[in-house]
């Protein structure tokens, strides 16, 4: 397969995929992340569990550099974030409500946006770009729908299209924000399987999810977040009612214990 992993030899292969150290972020007076430290090894899928406002989206933004931390550092495959971004190592799948689904772009157009970092001033697609996009679409099994408007896809297909954008970009670290929200069971299984395959290839996946039930099938490890890291362990351990109670308060523990 001609996946263009545009040779980033800079970070040594032994470097962890993601190292976050002492990350603290404020929005005005509000403390969004408090001294967060995380290390993810390559090829793992890590679930990020926490209630709304627990700092999951802020953590993603800080890793991608769109939010400036007050303190702390992020290292991606041994590189500082800015250089990692320039190399296209970080791929991002936004949560549904952050995307304008009426935007007149095809699936192909969206996936091609993964290649912009490698293209010239006008982002004119070349042969290698078209091949990378075709391979990425093939990988997520959306080749047939390449010409479809992005908003005309189902919830699960939309997520796969954005994963394809990350693949076309050659991303080694994929960040997915609530990929299972508004996605039916079958699509969820398809996405889970796809992410497991990508992890088996050595890619690292950090995924925030409300879907606690599906987490053990998806993730190798899980983080319980409430502005700080309450726990970083196996999904089963993190999902124990007494642990969830610390992150969510008591209403959700009943559900998790079902």
């Amino acid at each position, binding site marked *: 397969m001609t996946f263009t992993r545009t040779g980033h030899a800079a970070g040594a292969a032994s470097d962890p995929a993601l190292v976050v150290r002492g990350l603290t972020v404020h929005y005005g007076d509000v403390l969004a992340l408090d001294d967060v430290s995380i290390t993810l090894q390559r090829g793992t899928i890590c679930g990020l569990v926490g209630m709304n406002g627990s700092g999951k989206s802020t953590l993603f*933004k800080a890793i*991608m*550099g*769109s939010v400036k931390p007050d303190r702390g550092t992020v290292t991606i495959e041994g590189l500082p974030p*800015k250089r990692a*971004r*320039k*190399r*296209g190592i*970080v*791929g*991002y799948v*936004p949560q549904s409500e*952050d*995307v*304008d689904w009426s*935007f*007149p*772009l*095809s699936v192909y*157009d*969206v996936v091609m*946006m*993964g290649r*912009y*970092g490698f293209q010239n*001033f*006008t*982002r004119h697609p070349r042969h290698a770009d078209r091949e990378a996009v075709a391979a990425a679409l093939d990988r997520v099994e959306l080749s047939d729908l390449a010409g479809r*408007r992005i908003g005309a896809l189902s919830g699960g297909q939309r997520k796969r299209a954005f994963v394809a*954008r990350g693949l076309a*970009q050659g991303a080694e670290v994929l960040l997915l924000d609530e990929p299972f929200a508004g996605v039916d069971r079958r699509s969820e299984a398809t996405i889970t399987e796809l992410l497991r395959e990508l992890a088996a290839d050595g890619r690292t996946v950090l995924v925030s999810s409300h879907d606690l039930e599906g987490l053990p099938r998806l993730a190798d490890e899980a983080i319980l977040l409430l502005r700080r890291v309450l726990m970083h362990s196996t999904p089963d351990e993190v999902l124990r009612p007494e642990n969830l109670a610390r992150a969510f308060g008591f209403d959700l523990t009943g559900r998790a214990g079902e």
Partner: protein
Amino acid sequence: MPLVDLLLEPLSYDFMQRAFLVTVTAAIVCGVLSCWLVLIGWSLMGDAVSHAVLPGVVLAYLLGTPFAVGALVFGVAAVALIGLVRSTSRVKEDAAIGVVFTTLFALGIVLISVVPSQTDLGHILFGNLLGVSVADLAQVLGLGVVTLAILVLKRRDLTLYAFDPTHANAIGLNPKALGALLLGLLALTVVVALQAVGVVLVVAMLIIPGATAYLLTDRFARMLVISPIIAAACSIVGIYLSYYLDAASGGMVVLTMGAVFTLVYLFAPQHGVIGRRLTTAARRRQVTANV
């Protein structure tokens, strides 16, 4: 009078030729830019920048510099001020826009009223299509070509910025710089269109063509072609109408655009209010016929 003569007669005057050139140039640049404005939701921003340039135009006349310079300075200043008010106070963006542009517009009106000059408020507010000098024409053509070239060359980046700035950031591009580029191009475009339709109606040229094209296609690349074609065609029709009806040219151009938008809003095959039903009904008939 035969139709050919009806069409050719206005063109026998130099001032009409210049009027056509200025308006079509403005229409094309506005038509292209409007695709991004309507998708990002920056209509109010277009309105703001077009009004905020008024004091710049007056000062430019006063100082004897090209009006484009004054307009550009105030257009950029307005954008910077809006950003400043929004980011350093609790005032929300639309309110910040409202405060800044109305204040600058008022400054322009006050300046005109106290400055003893031959500056005609009406010409700035509503355009002065029939009084385009050769120098004005050169200015509009020059700025128009530069603005259009940047828009076309950077169209993919601008679309990425409009669609998903977070991804732009994630792949090492600078979304803030792209946003600033788009706003700078907006200020330039307003300057280009000022002479044709005036401060008050520039926003129509910045919004209507893009909004119309958006109802006609699901492809952004096609929108970028359809929108300037609609804008240019409406401009030409509008000027002819204004010539024969002896009506305000800027107003006539915008009225034509509004009429075309209305037709598209009603009858566009996929996204028109009535057209959508007709398309569905036709499809249903076809299915029934095939059964």
